């Protein structure tokens, strides 16, 4: 088979090969080259829990419109291994063009597949070794996309400059070789996407970075954590920026040490956080309660992956909402943010520190592997309105750490700040902070801690409603409302936008707990509500029911470790629209 590819709007390129084959190099060059070339760019990766071998893939989208989601569609597959095609068989169609080195995929049925073979390796060897094959490939793709050669060269120079002039020179040569290949490929692959030169100066970041920038902005001073996918990238980000932004990063011996160390640092006044994933967070559960009891703030970055136990370490999931909600013995307030886009990631991460300090509670930033690892460009990232609010007070000799106040918030001091003492205690305690077994003080202290929820509720983020109608009537009812939280944001939004229908809406939550008091009313704005979650239980649907009495009508659940694609969301929407038609008949 041998088809042509004609693309004018939006191309999806997938790189697939074994761990260690250099997909990451191609990916890094491509996302930068695409942006420099004047296109919007998005990338997402799925990979196995191993260091070498297996099959990993990265999707890169380029478009003249903003694109920020995973799609199933593969326009161009760059296969680096024989198994790549099997690995992606469900997503390869007769439209997909497969590019690979001439040495592989010899058994592929040429009738069924659009296969283009290029002697990448041979060319690379001529340039000095097989490692240049990746750059040749990147050059070929850039050329096909229409990225100007000079822009591509700039990328290569910037990215390899650390490796020395010789390497840069070779890589530039490899790039040029790639462009020659690309020119030939243009006979079959015709991509003509409108450019916007302004995109070149946009910001390109990952979900992890957006969170990390928010943490720095929120005044993070201390992170102690233990490596665990998919939270490790944020740990690397903070470790890397520690010197510049006067933060402490310490790898703890285990997650229990991590959070207890963080709570110590926080008690002493350093805004503190931990980063972890499900299993590691489970180990922190006791100390989450410690934060609640000591009324000592902590920010918990919990990046989800499929469980239970070790599960699928490098995949995505939304299975730990219940765990974040209920981990730890006893009762006390907490906040859970679930950002779904870069701007929100920055904002809620920043906010997390202020809210943790203000209410002296644990605050969660709940993300997942998909969100942590995606990249896309955004026009700007504004920190102008993000302020570090200072809630610490200087103590006097009669200072009471747990003073009972009407809103439950006791002015908080720290050791060495003022003339009083900072006394915190994990037992039930009196206002001073000392152990008590006076049962009426107990009741008062429980109430004091719980009542903080009232003010927290006032400050919570409302669900955001998206739809396609320009002028929404006030009491308009949608036929269908998709409900999502966290990383499903863009796939759902892109799908809803694609329907073009004004009777389909999307209600998105960047804060899932506590739920804003308007939530119940917002949910009633549709005949049919469908929650989309990357878990098998519908945990958010349960939470909604518990908090608002509203029973979500349908659940669309996916729990194989992959994110929802735009196509899947579209399908879900259409299925329900059809269903409705059936019923109407």
């Amino acid at each position, binding site marked *: 088979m041998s088809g042509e590819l004609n693309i004018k709007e939006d191309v999806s390129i997938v790189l697939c090969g074994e761990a260690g084959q250099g997909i990451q190099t191609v990916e890094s060059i491509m996302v930068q080259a695409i942006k420099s070339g004047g296109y919007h760019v998005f990338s997402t990766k799925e990979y196995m829990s191993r260091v070498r071998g297996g099959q990993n893939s990265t999707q890169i989208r380029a478009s003249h419109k903003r694109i920020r989601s995973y799609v199933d569609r593969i326009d161009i597959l760059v296969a680096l291994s024989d198994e790549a095609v099997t690995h992606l068989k469900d997503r390869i169609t007769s439209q997909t063009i497969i590019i690979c080195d001439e040495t592989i995929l010899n058994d592929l049925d040429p009738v069924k597949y659009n296969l283009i073979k290029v002697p990448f390796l041979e060319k690379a060897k001529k340039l000095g070794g097989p490692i240049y094959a990746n750059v040749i490939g990147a050059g070929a793709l850039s050329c096909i996309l229409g990225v100007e050669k000079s822009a591509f060269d700039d990328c290569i120079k910037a990215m390899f400059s650390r490796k020395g002039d010789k390497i840069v020179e070779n890589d530039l040569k490899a790039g040029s070789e790639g462009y020659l290949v690309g020119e030939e490929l243009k006979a079959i692959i015709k991509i003509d996407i409108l450019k916007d030169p302004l995109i070149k100066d946009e910001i390109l970041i990952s979900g992890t970075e957006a969170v990390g920038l928010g943490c720095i902005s929120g005044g993070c001073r201390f992170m102690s954590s233990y490596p665990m996918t998919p939270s490790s990238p944020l740990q690397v980000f903070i470790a890397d920026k520690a010197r*510049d932004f006067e933060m402490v990063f*310490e790898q703890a011996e285990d997650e229990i*040490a991590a959070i207890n160390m963080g709570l110590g640092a926080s008690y002493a006044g350093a805004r503190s956080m931990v980063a972890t994933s499900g299993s590691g967070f489970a180990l922190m559960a006791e100390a989450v309660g410690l934060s609640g009891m000591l009324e000592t703030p902590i920010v918990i970055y919990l990046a989800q992956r499929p469980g239970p136990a070790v599960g699928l370490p490098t995949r995505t999931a939304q299975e730990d909402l219940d765990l974040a909600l209920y981990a730890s013995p006893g009762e006390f307030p907490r906040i859970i943010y679930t950002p779904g886009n870069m701007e929100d990631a920055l904002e809620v991460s920043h906010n997390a520190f202020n809210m943790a300090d203000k209410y002296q509670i644990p605050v969660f930033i709940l993300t997942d592997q998909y969100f942590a690892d995606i990249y896309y460009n955004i026009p700007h990232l504004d920190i102008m309105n993000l302020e570090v609010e200072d809630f610490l007070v200087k103590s006097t000799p009669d200072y009471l750490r747990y003073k009972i106040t009407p809103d439950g918030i006791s002015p908080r001091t720290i050791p060495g700040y003022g003339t009083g003492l900072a006394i915190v205690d994990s037992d039930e305690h009196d206002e001073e902070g000392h152990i008590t077994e006076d049962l009426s003080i107990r009741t008062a202290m429980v109430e004091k801690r719980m009542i903080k929820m009232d003010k927290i509720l006032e400050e919570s983020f409302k669900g955001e409603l998206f739809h396609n109608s320009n002028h929404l009537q006030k009491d308009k009812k949608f036929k269908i409302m998709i409900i999502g939280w966290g990383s499903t944001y863009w796939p759902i939004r892109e799908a809803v936008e694609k329907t073009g229908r004004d009777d389909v809406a999307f209600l998105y939550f960047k804060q899932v707990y506590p739920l804003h008091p308007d939530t119940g009313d917002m949910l009633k704005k549709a005949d049919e509500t469908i929650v989309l979650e990357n878990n098998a239980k519908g945990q958010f649907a349960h939470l909604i029911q518990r908090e608002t009495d509203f029973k979500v009508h349908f659940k669309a659940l996916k729990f194989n470790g992959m994110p929802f694609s735009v196509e899947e969301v579209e399908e879900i929407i259409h299925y329900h629209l059809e269903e409705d038609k059936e019923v109407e008949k």
Partner: protein
Amino acid sequence: MNPEVYDMQNADVAWCPGCGNFAILKTLKMALADLEIPPENLVMVSGIGQAGKLPHYIKSNVFNGLHGRSLSPATGIKASNKNMNVVAVSGDGCTYGEGGNHFMHTIRRNPDITNIVHNNMVYGLTKGQASPTSQINLKTPFQVDGVFEEPFNPLAVAISLGATFVARAFAGDIEKTRKIIKKAVEHKGYSLVDIFQPCPTFNKVNTFQWFKNNIYYLEDSYKPHNKAKALKRAVEGPHESGKFPLGIFYIKEGLKTFEENLSVYEKVDTPLFKREVDRDKLKKLIESKKKI
């Protein structure tokens, strides 16, 4: 300074009459007073247990955290505010049992904190189960056939892991213990003081008298600077060769502390809570994401 500055007026002390904890509390106050540490500069950190209640009975800043987790917050506190004197105090069960992993890795980190362990060879607060340091054959409601596990040797483990100050003391000897604690607090880096403490209520075997009979002090000529020699002495004990030596087993001077290794303290000692976010730098970092 007068040790009374640390006295708490209305503290309802929950210890049993005759408990070795009283002597430790008294001795600790004396040592701290010797060093002229004002209560506002002192942070007492503890886990949970009878020993872990001590911070409530001494005027100071207090972080009374979770069972087994005294050393992690202590490390965090010191790292956020180098100017504080941080003393972590807890029981043998708390420190070597539930908290054993932090014991080992805190030693490796070498924060400038003092770690006092009330070693009564039993779980006091939970009513008399074996602790890691319980001696062979101790019978308890949990160990109905008696303890058979090799007793935990905190000193040898600490020295093996490169602890920079390792000592053992006895609650019954206030003057010698006072000196040891003083040196431990003065020491720059992690210091361990394991204190034999009689628990008259639950440990009817390792009583005050038993301790008296089973201890001796390292000879004056002993120099605590050789790791292998220190280890040799640390593995002495009834089980091995007779009696438990007391005193300072090992000191290593000059090793950088955890805090000193942190980039935040390369230029200034300012506590972290006093620092402000460099928003210009942050803006620049964001800007840098525009470029490749």
